[in-house]
């Protein structure tokens, strides 16, 4: 309890000291997570909509696979991405290991299935009825797609926020592929892990509180939007 209070005090100090390093870390965390969420959404949302509505063989197997992929173990993904991107790996010549780009790649592999899965699940349930309404009321293909997106807007938002939340809170994968390099690939979670392992609990807790605050803010906005209907 004393530690937590100390952390809270530190957190406030940390934030109000306007420490360049701390703000850099927070900024990088948000920036990377935002980037990977956008890219994952560009892949996951259209694919989820399409696959959810379209009947195809082995749909049940696909459903189970996508649900499994929604909880891929981050450390394993980090390891695999690192193996591919490391200097001696198949994509080593790109020189991406220990860069923010590598971190975005790892995050995308983790959150694309989450976004895809959430959208797919809802499209499977509601999609056919929405598509049918579009067709019976005379909507063209693009108009039907627009209808689908407006009708499923809450699900799409939940998918985005969940993906973003997962990206900001994940530590294992970004630690392995990013390397927690100061001023370059150090993000909030790796900063917390590092400080905690060095015994700097107050600093670790304070950054943890910042992370919680961000997640609280994002979820508040979501909640407001969902219930503001």
């Amino acid at each position, binding site marked *: 309890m004393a530690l937590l209070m100390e952390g809270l005090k530190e957190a406030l100090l940390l934030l109000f000291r306007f420490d360049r390093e701390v703000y850099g870390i927070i900024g990088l965390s948000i920036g990377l997570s935002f980037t990977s969420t956008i890219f994952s959404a560009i892949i996951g949302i259209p694919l989820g909509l399409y696959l959810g509505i379209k009947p195809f063989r082995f749909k049940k197997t696909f459903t189970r696979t996508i649900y499994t992929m929604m909880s891929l173990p981050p450390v394993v993904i980090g390891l695999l991405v690192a193996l591919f991107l490391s200097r001696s790996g198949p994509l080593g010549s790109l020189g991406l290991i220990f860069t923010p780009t590598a971190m975005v790649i790892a995050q995308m592999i983790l959150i694309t299935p989450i976004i895809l899965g959430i959208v797919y699940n809802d499209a499977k349930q509601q999609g056919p009825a929405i598509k*049918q*309404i579009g067709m019976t*009321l*005379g909507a*063209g293909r693009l108009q039907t797609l627009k*209808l689908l997106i*407006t009708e499923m807007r809450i699900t799409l938002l939940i998918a985005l926020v969940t993906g973003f939340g997962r990206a900001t809170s994940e530590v294992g994968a970004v630690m392995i592929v990013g390397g927690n390099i100061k001023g370059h690939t150090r993000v909030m979670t790796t900063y917390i892990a590092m400080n905690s392992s060095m015994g700097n609990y107050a600093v670790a807790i304070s950054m943890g509180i910042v992370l919680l605050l961000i997640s609280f803010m994002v979820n508040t906005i979501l909640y407001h939007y969902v219930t503001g*209907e």
Partner: protein
Amino acid sequence: MNIQVTNLIKKYQDKTVVDMNSIGFLSGNIYGVTGDNGAGKTTLLKILAGLESHDLGNIVYNDQPLGPSLMKKITYLSQTPYLMRSSVYENIIYPLKIRNVDSKIIERKAFEIMEELQVAELRDQLATQLSGGESQKVALARALVFDPEVLLLDEPTASIDPATIEIIEEAIKKRNKLQNMTIIMISHNIDQVKRMCDEIIYMKKGKRI
């Protein structure tokens, strides 16, 4: 619009669900389709609406095969209509909005149909929160507002109170007369079918009997 069906066969896996030799629907008539649960009534209507494919046979609309422009003139009202997550008014004007109808005309048409089906006081309510009967009326208003040439109704008055049934029946009959609409309605209510329809089609195991 006249619709002519010849040698229509629809199967789900190995099961034949619709098997119609020849059946015609003429402009300005109301047809009633009735028969046991699972007889293939809904499937027949969905095929006519272009929502389901068929395995064999031929369907022509004024001697034309069904294409995108014809589909805009046909509408199907489901047994369980889907209303969009927006106000009743937004739902009703949707078909007009996607047709780029002038906003003055949209307002007038929406007003007329809402008065006719007595849903005007629901105008700003969220459509997904309506009762079953209210939903049916709003869905019917949305289907009628753009003056389709073919109206396919799947049990439009199932689980609806007598007063509302009368409102719905009047609206259907009025449009049918005024606009020469081809109407095919499924109903389990024989009295209703006799009251409303020019011709009754009894279906059993996919066939007309």
